[in-house]
């Protein structure tokens, strides 16, 4: 749910930047120096994964996977998403710099939320179905929340924007469905191949 340059009002831009900055600091605190290679490689993996297109209906959507990123990285998802968005802006000229703070907030808040909500559940899950279900919920919820936050940012930027919020959410429905399905598949995959990625022992 990237918002492009020029649309958001100054208070929204600044508010988003400030909140994200604070959260990034928190995320960096949780990242030991030794964790940086792992976080970086995972960020790179998510960056590449977001280039994958999934056919849905008659068109295709590209993956976001912020819910999964949150589950795996926790608060470190904030700096990770910031880096990924910065890279996107600079390499692909996609997204934007002035909106970096807001976009980070929009994607990372649901990510961290997924960590808080779903990791305890994952710890107690045992069957493939359970894992898939949690994955679906995490994926769908993360993208829905991002959509809502994006719509809120736009709505807060001007009176005339309100009808757009509803339209944005409607347009995002196929994305929500694909994210739910794919995240379910990935969590199921990880539960079999490398469950330690999903649920780590507390330090």
């Amino acid at each position, binding site marked *: 749910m990237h918002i492009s340059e020029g649309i958001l009002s100054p208070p929204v831009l600044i508010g988003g930047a400030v909140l994200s900055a604070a959260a990034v600091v928190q995320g960096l605190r949780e990242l030991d120096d030794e964790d940086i290679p792992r976080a970086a490689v995972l960020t790179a993996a998510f960056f590449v994964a977001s280039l994958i297109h999934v056919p849905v209906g008659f068109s295709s959507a590209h993956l976001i996977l912020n819910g999964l990123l949150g589950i795996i990285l926790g608060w470190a998802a904030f700096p990770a998403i910031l880096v990924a968005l910065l890279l996107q802006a600079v390499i692909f000229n996609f997204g934007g710099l002035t909106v970096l703070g807001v976009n980070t907030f929009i994607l990372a808040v649901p990510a961290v939320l997924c960590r808080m909500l779903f990791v305890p559940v994952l710890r107690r899950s045992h069957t493939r179905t359970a894992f898939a279900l949690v994955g679906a919920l995490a994926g769908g919820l993360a993208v829905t929340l991002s959509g809502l936050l994006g719509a809120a940012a736009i709505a807060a930027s001007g009176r005339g924007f309100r009808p757009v919020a509803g339209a944005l959410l409607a347009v995002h429905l196929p994305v929500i469905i694909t994210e739910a399905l794919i995240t379910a598949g990935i969590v*199921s*995959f990880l539960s*079999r*191949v*490398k469950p330690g990625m999903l649920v780590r022992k507390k330090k």
Partner: protein
Amino acid sequence: MNASLFELKDVTFRYETDHPVLESVSFSILPGERIALTGINGSGKTTLLELMVGLNKPQRGTVTAFGRTRIEEEDFYEVRLRTGLLFQDPDDQLFSSTVAEDVAFGPFNLGWPRKRIMAAVRAILARLGLEGFEHRITHHLSYGERRLVCMATILVMEPEVLLLDEPTEGLDEHHREMLVALLKASPCAMLIASHDKALLDAVTNRSLRLENGRV
């Protein structure tokens, strides 16, 4: 009457760098032929194999497979379902969580019914000495085991032509012998790129050498 399975005419290919990898390559594969493809590392063997199923497009020349000229991506779809390409690096080929899933992938693309797929998976794993491997996690297998699973993933599709890139590399003696026996008994036509002289002597009946083109 032209019954060739594959026919390459005057195929020239280069990557972005100027240096041509394949230059005016022409040959054909007839049913029952088993051809050894030799050449030093970097001579373009892998490129040639990939080109035959449309993963690379030649700058010049034509690729004819199963009687039709193949140019667009769409043309090669059928070719891939009837040709088994074994990649040199098993990690380029395996991507599913379990062995059974990876082996079943090809048959799914072929549109086989579930029951047939499950039976075929079990059968091919048995033939390769991998009984009971259905639920093993591919990521945790040894290099040699992964190579064999790759072999299973393409043999299960019952291809007419096999394009093999270093099939015996990394295999221990036991598995290697199994593979050689299996290839000898196979009805498929084959093009095998390999440094394994014993394999080539046992299995192949023709030879092509790549050196900037062909000799």
